[in-house]
């Protein structure tokens, strides 16, 4: 019997309406989660006033207070990278819940490489450290990926186990071989300043070193080229012209930026912790978007996620893709750990009993954003702001930070089950075949 669903006729009006509904869903999910959270606070504190104070503290701490916004952005960065890691996995049908373990391994690799060399200029040391962290994460995720590809071992369990191994392993390394003999607390030594991620406040000082200025100029050149290729592809078709303009921009940056920043720089506060890792994370988001939707590699990954049997028929190597996807996912998670050590941590090191709790949250973010890199940017900011504001909330109202976790898990519930939200608000479901990765159905046996 022929398929019962046929293409529905679409009018512009109904299309617009559908778009509105689609945007409304996450908003509704958000509102509902917060309302339920408020209810929990009300019930456990027995006092309506506490709810008000709690939310006021939350918003104040997240956005309004001095350096509140920048702290929220600082908290956002690891979320972006971790959620990208999870999303890449999802798109290929793989469930990487080992992001937290890969985060640790990346952190420890970065903590080690960051302090293992002395006297290297930043232009070498920083990329080296970032690379080490990404590589560590890639390997840590690549192992379960390899096992899945060759033996079918289910990645939910194997990545989860790798998490626990990572926690213990990192604990061991920080407590014994990599312990900083000079510090009172149990932690790794401070990374050399050349390996640190610059804070925005620090940039003018950093730029005085010509090698650093060169590094920035190179980055600007590359970004300009990409931008030109994307925006002015038709007006400037010749490679030579594009590179010419890009190099010109790079030269101007090299010569002009250092003195310019000494004259005027919008980030004067030396205590402001906002660091360039944010730029890295945004670049990563764009990179993931480009990879998944604009390249043959990404096409293969998504095909494997949507219909692996058809992917085989199309000639895609499932083994290669599983390992590749896990490695990329792990690299992103490792990068998140690296950023944590090099940019977020105050000691520029990895301490013992460092508990991030980022891991599961990033799954929620990826689902909330429907695995879309730009949605991930937005949702990560939401989570980062909430996490940041939670401290102030606790300070003001005495309500434990964990209520944020509860709200976030409710958010995840509604994100994963939009049908639940629809059912609550009696919105009719639309019949669409959306591009969703079949993030595995079961254990894949037989």
């Amino acid at each position, binding site marked *: 019997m022929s*398929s*019962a669903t046929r293409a529905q006729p679409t009018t512009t009006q109904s299309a617009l309406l559908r778009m509105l509904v689609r945007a409304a869903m996450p908003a509704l999910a958000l509102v509902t989660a917060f309302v339920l959270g408020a209810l929990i606070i009300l019930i456990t504190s027995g006092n309506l006033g506490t709810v008000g104070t709690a939310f006021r503290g939350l918003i104040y701490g997240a956005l309004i207070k001095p350096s509140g916004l920048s702290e929220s952005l600082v908290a956002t960065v690891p979320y972006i990278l971790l959620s990208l890691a999870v999303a890449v996995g999802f798109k290929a049908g793989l469930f990487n819940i080992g992001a937290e373990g890969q985060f640790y391994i990346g952190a420890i690799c970065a903590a080690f490489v960051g302090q293992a060399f002395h006297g290297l200029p930043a232009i070498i040391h920083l990329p080296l450290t970032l690379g080490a962290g990404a590589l560590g994460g890639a390997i840590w995720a690549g192992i379960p990926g390899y096992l899945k590809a060759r033996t079918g071992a289910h990645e939910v369990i194997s990545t989860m186990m790798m998490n626990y191994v990572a926690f213990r392993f990192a604990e061991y390394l920080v407590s014994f071989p990599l312990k900083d003999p000079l510090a009172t607390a149990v932690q790794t030594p401070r990374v050399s300043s050349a390996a640190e991620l610059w804070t925005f406040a620090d940039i003018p000082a950093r730029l005085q070193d010509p090698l650093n200025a060169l590094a920035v100029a190179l980055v600007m050149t590359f970004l300009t080229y990409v931008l030109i290729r994307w925006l002015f592809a038709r007006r400037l078709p010749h490679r030579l012209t594009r590179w010419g303009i890009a190099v010109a921009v790079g030269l101007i940056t090299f010569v002009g930026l250092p003195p310019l920043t000494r004259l005027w720089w919008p980030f004067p506060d030396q205590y402001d912790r906002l660091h360039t890792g944010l730029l890295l994370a945004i670049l990563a988001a764009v990179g993931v978007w480009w990879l998944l939707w604009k*390249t043959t590699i990404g096409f293969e990954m998504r095909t494997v996620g949507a*219909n692996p049997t058809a992917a085989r*028929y199309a000639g895609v190597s499932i083994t290669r893709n599983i390992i590749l996807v896990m490695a990329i996912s792990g690299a992103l998670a490792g990068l998140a750990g690296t950023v944590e050590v090099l940019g977020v941590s105050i000691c520029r090191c990895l301490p013992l009993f460092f508990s991030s709790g980022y891991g599961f949250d990033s799954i929620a973010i990826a689902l909330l954003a429907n695995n879309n890199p730009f949605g991930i940017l937005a949702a990560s900011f939401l989570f980062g702001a909430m996490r940041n504001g939670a401290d102030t909330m606790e300070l003001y109202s005495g309500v434990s930070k964990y209520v944020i976790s509860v709200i976030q898990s409710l958010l995840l519930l509604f994100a994963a089950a939009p049908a639940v939200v629809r059912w609550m608000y009696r919105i009719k479901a639309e019949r669409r075949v959306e591009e969703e990765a079949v993030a595995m159905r079961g254990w894949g046996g037989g």
Partner: protein
Amino acid sequence: MTLALQASGITKRFPGVLANDHVNFELEQGEIHALLGENGAGKSTLMNILYGLYQPDEGQITVNGKPTRITSPHDAIAQGIGMVHQHFMLVPPLTVTENIMLGQESVVGATQVLGGLSVLDRRSVAARVRELSHQYGLEVDPDAFVRDLTVGAQQRIEIVKALYRAADILILDEPTAVLTPQEADELFVIMRSLAKQGKSIVFITHKLREVFAVADRISVMRAGQMVGTVKPSEATTEMLAEMMVGRKVILTVDKEEAHPAEEILHVQNLRVMDDRKHMTVDDVSFSVRAGEILGVAGVQGNGQTELTEALTGLRRVADGHVTILGHDTTHATPRQVVEVGTAHIPEDRHKHGLVLAFPVRDNLVLCSYYHSPFAKGVELDFPVIEKQAEELVNTFDIRTPSINTSAGSLSGGNQQKVIVARELSRPVKLLIASQPTRGLDVGSIEFIHQRIVEARDKGAAVLLISAELDEIMSLSDRIAVMYKGHILDTLDAETATREQLGLLMAGVVKEGAHV
């Protein structure tokens, strides 16, 4: 003459489709009533309504003179209606006895008070199964595991399952789809025996010939409506075909004579194992030349699937050689096989041929996205991809709102057209088509047959694998018959008869001798 079953004014709507449009249907006691129609006509829907799997939007059902509502299979079974589905509803890891008593389990008397947690009484059910199998001549082994049984045996179990529940009305949905012509004849004998013992039978089919063999009356459905009911003695195949499709149907494909040229595909002593480590392709050798169509006939399950998979690089070859255009592709990857010049229409379009969640545009480049002009290095060139997609949609008349519609929203016929368009848009030296028209409406079937012949005329070698004997006979230049992993014989299509082929499909090589 009492009516066992009467359905009047049955109407059923699905989103976008009117599956049954005020359908009237009558089943007399003790008759075998054939329900004929092409794929998508609404026959299965009607029967599913009678079995309680769907609820009609309008209409009335009367069983044995009493108006009734059938809201679930439970009700249907209670009213004495049993159904044998086209895709068997048997649980493979369970035994025959367990499958038969499922849902109506007998328990050891002493433990009955425990309800759902009482002890199963397998022995008495097995005894009853043996009783029934003797009474109706249906050979079944109560203790066997269903997954170890042949298709014919499984079908017999389905019938016993219905009889175990004291069904007086039996609905058989496309029962001969998985049988050889001889096994189908055996089934007809069983059906007549059942009818003689008072059972009333409805059997759904889209094969014109069968209705003449066994039906007392024939009802034809088309596009959700009941077109008419005739007696076999008053009807001809042409008349029935016209009732089924609504216009004059050319029952044979118009094709010129074949002019085979050089050898394109050569298969030598091929041996392939299936997932359960059985040698399902056992020492197969054949070749296909440019400009000819070699049809492989045979009931599904005799190794055709594994053969196709081995040829296209999806399954490991245990022994033997495959050569395409002089290249040894025995151990090639699917991509390498494609790059040699092979096009492949897979037998399961949903699982293998398409990514239903992707748009039509992406599905059309599924095999060629990685090289120019669709990709520059690692980057996809979307303007080129979209242009290609638009062209193909036009050339192949694919009905879709846009190239960005997801493939899953298209009808079966259009989905198959997407696959055919994709495969035939490349320069093709070898076309391997597996069950290319399964489940499609007549219009799509005609279209695809034309395309296959066109490919042949343009010089491609075509390997056609199909369980539909009519399709094989009308398209092929030569016909090979596969049985239990061997090619028993290869006949010239012009001179081969249905009887000859039927015997080969059942494993009979010479008169009376079984392989």
